[in-house]
């Protein structure tokens, strides 16, 4: 079957099957390898993308379910060589270690801040509850989200790309 979807602002038409998951379509067909498969069962969040404005695990979406959808992957965050604010704060506070969970974390954090521009620490922890990390203990990731929230609400977002 053929499906049409918008990925990172670009319309794509892909020949696929109903045995293909969105993560496979992104990684294998569109060569967008930022989303990772850490568990394949929606438990680790490494494959997180935004689909029609909602945070989803791309390993739990079947390709045909994404027909007509608007998808944002980590490759669509920021603009070219310019990092968005969340990516900047991840770097600044040292929220990245092995980096494998990072794309999913950035995507989840982005969604979180879109919905709630001033989250409490507790709300950040819950917003990231579906994203596992084995390196950081989440602490610097949470700090990075807090800092990004500060910047975005301070209006200092203009320095970077913003959300």
């Amino acid at each position, binding site marked *: 079957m053929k499906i049409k979807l918008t990925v990172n602002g670009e319309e794509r038409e892909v020949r696929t099957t109903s045995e293909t998951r969105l993560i496979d379509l992104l990684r294998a067909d569109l060569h967008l390898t930022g989303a990772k498969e850490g568990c394949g069962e929606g438990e680790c969040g490494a494959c997180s993308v935004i689909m029609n404005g909602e945070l989803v695990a791309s390993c739990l979406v079947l390709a045909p379910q994404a027909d007509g959808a608007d998808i944002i992957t980590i490759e669509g965050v920021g603009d070219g060589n310019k990092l968005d604010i969340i990516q900047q704060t991840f770097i600044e506070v040292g929220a990245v270690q092995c980096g494998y969970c990072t794309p999913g974390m950035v995507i989840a954090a982005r969604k979180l801040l879109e919905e709630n521009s001033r989250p409490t620490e507790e709300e950040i922890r819950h917003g990231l509850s*579906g994203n596992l990390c084995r390196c950081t203990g989440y602490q610097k990731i949470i700090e990075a989200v807090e800092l990004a929230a500060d910047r975005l609400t301070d209006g200092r977002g203009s320095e970077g790309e913003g959300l």
Partner: protein
Amino acid sequence: MKGLKKEKQKQNKTKYFSPGNVKEAVEILAEIGEEVEVLAGGTDLLVRYYERLYDIDYLLDLRLLEGLEGIKLYDDRIEIGARATHSQLEKSEYINKYFPIIGQAAANVGSPQIRNRGTIGGNIVNASPAGDLLPGMLAYEAKFKLVSAKEEIIVSAEDFFVEPGKTILKPNQLLTKVILPKPEENTYSSWIKIGMRKTVAITTISLALVLKLKRDNNTIKELRTCLGSVAPTPLLIRELNREIKGEKIDQLDFNRLGELVADIISPIDDVRATKEYRKEVARNIMIESLEKVAKLR
């Protein structure tokens, strides 16, 4: 719709259907319902078939099906389309006003990623003993609308669940709607879920409790207590209601009811907990639930 099976054998690939309305969907079910996997949010199906999607013969995707979406308020009830997601339930004004513990239970399901995709219909039809919406359904006396090519029927949540993964839903039927009768005045409810983690945890034990009081806001009219993950299906404890009907909530011995619940259930050991743990926690959360609803008055 004839000849679907032959086509399938020839191709040896999953045959995918994405009908636009219920009529088309149930016609497909009428013909090949036995072999169809119904796909709603996919959060259970894709886990069940992880790496083995090739094993699905027929897939019926509900994504385009009209009439399965939304949460509608009527005078005497709320109707929830089977495709409503946990996130929608969690955020619904109506749900939180009239059936707060359904909203709370939905908010307790999995992660944001799961709640955004997983549906109420999926949660019900999958009939996991740990399904988080189920105890609330029984406690609130929900009804389900089942549609087949022949007829539409309404069944009670209490009669729906048979064993883990099994319900009275027939292969030719589709669950389209959940109907929740609006609670009478002086109805109070509580939801407690215990997992191995606060979030993203399969339920070790849960308890949905709905307390209906008489006009004095004290005399018990009905107590509906339903536990999750202590039996093959959500367990509504009817005995309890008989025990205390007519008593006053401010004079009720919560401990006695807690002990009763613990005595009545016969849970099993699994990877999450022992049966002894479940019994003890059942008692504790029964007491806690009663304290919670008593305070809500």
